[in-house]
């Protein structure tokens, strides 16, 4: 199969009406024989990264956690930074799908599907780290409440145990929500299938969807219920993840501001990842008519708003440290900004607080490429935020004698870079084989759809 030099999606969508054009615009991505060359390049690159990821994890499993840079006192290094980073990314999807759905923010329909996909893939990436970072990675099931002959039970007072439930619940609900939303679109794919394989495969996942009004009725109810279930999870997952730190005694971790601050940061980072993915996706797959500049602008506004919340939290942490009068707290924050890891702190501040301010200018927030660049910057900043919280706080705690300086090893960098390989591999496969945009929902809120009146 020759790879086309020309982007097959450049042509305007075909069809005699609005609905047909939407269907054509989305389905042709999955139905075309050859995706654009960019897809192949990206997929090949993602595969290389994925290989590196698996290689680095294999190396760590074989040799021990010491292959990473973790040491004493920084016993949690890159793996947990990566875990919190990916979990944070995994927030925007559910927020867009569930919360914005409940708030009737109909613009979300253009982006909710791949935001949800992004959520799930990010949770997959995140889920790998807690299992892999433990000293004996063949025993993570000790953390699950499995009845066993030793009569051993997990220790439910540990926030890590709460994580197990919070993340697995979130992953389950997100997958259900994502899958359920795709059922009508799978049916469209099935109906348009020209090969048996596609017909059977999409037929199975479409679960017998016929688009009857009764099915639509049940579907809408279920979607609403799942949205209502998912909404508290948006708040709970990252709150629980933040408890890993907030309930600990370590200065820099032990603070009550963490749950809202983490949630805001997660939405911030999640939206940044959505725009990072949306801009190339709409460019390469010819979705500019569906994911419009207006959508990007709205997302940029959310980024700006949550970025301000995050910036406020950064400031508030300093204020509370000073106001507490606790010398360990004060030291931790002064050291964070001006100590040996000051470079990481200022990277975080500039990426997360300064650069998003550019979105005050309409020219910037309406420019897809500026959106992409700022989205990338925010992603870098949010990774550094987790690095600052985890590594800087641990490196200098109570007793000066046990202070240390964490230096990542090449394996750390390979694992971090490789996790993007897993993420992009899954995401590119999603773009190619699954309905990237929620066609049925977009249609419902398209001018033609609205003309049909309320459902």
């Amino acid at each position, binding site marked *: 199969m020759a790879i086309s030099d020309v982007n097959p999606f450049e042509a305007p969508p075909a069809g005699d009406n609005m609905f047909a054009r939407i269907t054509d615009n989305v389905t042709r991505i999955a139905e075309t024989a050859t995706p654009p060359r960019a897809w192949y390049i990206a997929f090949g690159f993602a595969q290389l990264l994925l290989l590196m990821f698996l290689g680095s994890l294999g190396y760590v499993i074989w040799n021990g956690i010491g292959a990473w840079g973790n040491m004493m006192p920084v016993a949690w290094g890159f793996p947990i930074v990566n875990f919190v980073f990916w979990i944070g990314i995994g927030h925007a999807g559910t927020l867009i799908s569930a919360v914005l759905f409940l708030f009737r923010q109909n613009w979300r329909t253009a982006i909710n599907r791949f935001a949800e996909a992004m959520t799930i893939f990010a949770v997959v990436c995140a889920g790998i780290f807690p299992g892999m970072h433990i000293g004996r990675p063949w025993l993570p099931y000790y953390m699950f409440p499995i009845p066993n002959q030793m009569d051993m039970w997990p220790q439910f007072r*540990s926030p890590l145990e709460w994580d197990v439930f919070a993340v697995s619940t979130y992953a389950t609900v997100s997958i259900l929500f994502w899958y359920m939303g795709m059922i009508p679109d799978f049916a469209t794919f099935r109906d348009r299938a020209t090969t048996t394989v596609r017909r059977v495969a999409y037929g199975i996942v479409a679960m017998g969807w016929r688009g009857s009004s009764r099915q639509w009725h049940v579907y809408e109810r279920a979607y609403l219920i799942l949205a209502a279930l998912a909404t508290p999870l948006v708040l709970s997952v990252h709150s629980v993840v933040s408890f890993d730190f907030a309930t600990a005694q370590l200065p820099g971790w032990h603070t009550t501001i963490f749950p809202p601050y983490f949630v805001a940061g997660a939405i911030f980072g999640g939206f940044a990842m959505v725009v990072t993915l949306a801009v190339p996706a709409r460019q390469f797959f010819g979705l500019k008519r569906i994911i419009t500049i207006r959508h990007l602008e709205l997302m940029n506004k959310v980024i700006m708003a949550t970025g301000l919340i995050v910036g406020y939290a950064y400031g508030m942490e300093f204020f509370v440290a000073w106001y507490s009068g606790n010398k360990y707290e004060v030291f931790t924050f002064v050291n964070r900004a001006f100590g040996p890891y000051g470079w990481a702190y200022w990277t975080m501040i500039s990426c997360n607080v300064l650069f998003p301010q550019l979105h005050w200018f309409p020219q910037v927030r309406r420019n897809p490429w500026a959106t992409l660049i700022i989205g990338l910057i925010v992603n870098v900043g949010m990774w550094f935020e987790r690095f600052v919280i985890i590594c800087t706080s641990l490196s200098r705690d109570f007793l000066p004698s046990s202070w240390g300086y964490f230096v990542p090893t090449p394996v750390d960098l390979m694992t971090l870079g490789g996790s993007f390989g897993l993420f992009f591999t899954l995401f590119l496969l999603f773009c190619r084989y699954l309905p990237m945009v929620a066609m049925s929902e977009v249609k419902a809120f398209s001018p033609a759809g609205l003309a049909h009146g309320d459902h």
Partner: protein
Amino acid sequence: MSSIDDLAKKRLSVLSNTPVAASGAGPAGSARPNYWKSLAELEQSPEFLELAAREFAAPLDQEPPNSPARRRFMQIMGASMSLAGLDACRWREDKILPLSRRPEGTIPGSSRYFATAMELNGHAVGVFASSYDGRPIKIEGNPAHPDSLGAASAYHQASVLGLYDPDRSEGVSSGNGNARKASSWEAFRMALASSLSGLQGSGGAGLRVLSERSSSPTLAEQKRKLLAAYPGAKWVTFEPMAYDGPRAGSVLAFGKAYRTHYAFEAAQVIVTLDADVVHPTFPAGLANARALTRNRVPDSGSMNRVYAIESSVTLTGSLSDHRLAIRAGLFKAVTAYLDGLVSAKANALPELGAAQDMPGAEFLKDAKVAKFLGVAAADLLANIGRGVVVAGQHQPAEVHALVHRLNALLGNVGRTVFYTDDQNAEEQSDVAALKALTDEVSAGKVDTLLILGGNPVFTAPADIAFGDALAKVKTSVHLSLYEDETSLKCAWHLPAAHYLESWGDALSWNGTLSIVQPMIAPLYNGRSAIEVVALLAGASATNGLELVRAVHPELAADHAWRRALSKGVVEGSAAARVEPKLTALSKVSLAEAELGSLGAPNGKLELVFAVDPKLIDGRFANNAWLQELPESLTKLTWDNAVLISPRTAKELKISDADSVTVSVGNRQLTLLALIAPGHADGSLRITLGHGRMAAGHVGGLVSANVDPVGDNAYTLRTSSGYEVANGVSVQSHGTVSYRVASTQDIYTVGEIGQQGTQERLPELVREGTLEEYKAKPEFVAEVVEHNPLLSLWVPPVSYDGHKWGMSIDLNKCIGCSACVTACQAENNIPVVGKVNVAKGREMLWLRVDRYYRGEPEDAEVSFQPIPCQQCENAPCEQVCPVGATMHSHEGLNDMVYNRCIGTRYCSNNCPYKVRRFNYFNYNIDTIGITPYTPTDDPKAKVKAMVFNPEVTVRSRGVMEKCTFCVQRIQNTKIRAKNSKRTIEDGEIKTACQQTCPTGAIIFGDLNDGKAEVTALHGLPRSYALLGELNNKPRVQYLARIKNPNLALSPAQAPTTEQG
């Protein structure tokens, strides 16, 4: 099936020797056998034939697979298939040798202790060595031994690791250089006999013995006999450790060599002149530490006062009340100055001679120095007969002579200072003796040279080419534990027996006799020095036991011998105290350089050579426990460094962790430089014993591509600048290219870190003066203000039975770190190596934190040992998701290794950071990857012998930490329960507590109102480290209370500084 039947019948026919008719033929057709086993066979009944056929049939033939049996068949097949898979799982195969009757005196699985002694530099420390199923695995001090008093140092503790070192030589070898071939003791004996026969005619003119310094009466007797038999032979002693200054000083002062003993427990004022009297390498250092700190208990009001004048920060300086840093070359002037001050005031007897002139030295014009010396002299004069002045071992003879005079002037002799004859003293210094020997060898006068221990090729001064000269000796023999640098240059290498493998005898510093008894038969066919000398002398008995017994007629009676072995000392064998008569001393002559200013005149520095506190002269270089033990002050592991004062470093533009080249004349050495707060200006200090080329796979083995550890300072040490070299220059090349393996303050902490440390240090290491403490004992508790500590819930554990606690007295801790190695030996703590220490992954359960206070130029040092604090409200227990760290009913935070999956959250939440994580399988060479894949490497098996079987050897990926030596607690509980009694206070001693020379660590049951630990926790100066976090730690620290002289420093401001 039928074919199988046919086959069986054919076989049967062969067996019965009877032709069988074609298959299916009836019994009638069969002939009767000639020989038969049963009547049935004879008759060839059909039943018999069928049964006989079945005997050889496949089992399945027995039951034709009809319907129900087919199912059974499938079951059996399935089971067989799955069981066949099990064949792949291998179990460890071990051969056992059951004893049908238990030998008398052995209790399998129980530790028994035997008294023995370990000698170093001519004096021995008595120890107890444990024997666990015949293996010595732990060393403790012998409380009855005058130089131990129950304590042992780090290198005593680590000696068990040296015993099982797989790098020890495994047999006699001969050859030249690296081209060596294995030989045997028999071959050596023959070779020796032939070379001796040549010597006999000349009266042994070509025979030389080069020995380490030894106190062994047996060896001394052998030496006497040997020299009598071979009048032309010579016996030379060479030891790189300083001994000459005190000997020559005593000769100068008394006309004869005497040993000096100090009764620090009776002293009120102690002035040390570059003397680290509490260090284990100082003669009787362990006992000195006990005696000196006995009078540092502010609660009873008995506090002595220590003035330390020294060129580098020593352990003595760290515990002192006043410290003055002066470079080593100025001590002659300092001592003369003190003599002048004291003579002016004291009623000097005329026979003590005239006072020294007050030297007009530049540095004495420094107001601070003059005031310090003046106050110290005044304090000594105010405490006539209750003071001690001590000079350092490496100080020259004049200083020692003047110190003898000072002690006499101050009336200390006979009260706090005592003398005994030094029977061990040689005529000349070790260096001169070695030089003379080398000259003789070079001149070809020596044809048989026996080197007993030591490693003179490595340790000889750089200007004495001893190693090169060795080639000229026809029969050169080296007895040594390792095939080391000297062995490689000798014609013969003989494997030495470790002290735990051999019989011997040794004297303590005060002459008390101890018998050295073996704990285990020599692992590598080694022999002790006395056995080899016996071989040389052609003695009939070459058995160590017989040799030793022959020398001690007073122990001839069996009960006396047994008593000596059992106690570890021969009572009443101490040398008699003598009162030598002081001769009038002439005025000391002071060279220009000895009258200079405090700093470095003209940028020319002095370089002090010191034996390494861990590796000594390099003999313990292959001991990984000692290599990994953080040095007391620099906290450096796996390395040595040249130490330099902050001011001098600034002047010479050297920063911390620079690579520098030190030049002594035309000799140069490039090594790591560390800035040592409190170090004397103008002085450099370097420790000897690193940079071994043929130590072993731990300490450096160039032939196996194992780089030397650290840098060899012997290359700078010449016979003229032996203890202190002058005119030294140093040049920096910028930061070293590797990460320095220091366990504290790796690289500069920066201004923020320093400020943060300054702020919190007064709370962490609480200190005060005796006046403050007397006036307001509760000041210690008031250092930290916090809200009332409330708990959210009632503690789930009531601690009805025992409630274990620990008290650590910061007033007594001298930072010697013996406890750290004791803990390592007791608890099977792995060694991680230089790279991992540099990454901060050291595994030591107990660490000794070192903090500097005051300005870097004259910093004061505080030590704080940090074991697991065993919090009642433990943050680690709270956060473990799998319940791998649990609270016991006695208040211990127990680690359940099997449950631990290694999330490391517990370490993150531990405010004391005492938890240690197995980032790799650090025990992989001894325990293998899994329990089912053990190693068959014999060297690994030898290494594994040192493990304490009562403590789990941890594998990769689990967290570990101090357990309060839970195995000792349990053993004592079992013993007490078996004899139906309660545990007495002090019956359980943790490993760190037991070895501590000063008794700074006390462990016990806090529920026992009469326990010492309960009393100590009740003292007003007892505080919980970070107690304001409401962790309720079970370890409490006793604040450090100093006894400063108000004339010198009215309560120094508690400014702190992180170095």
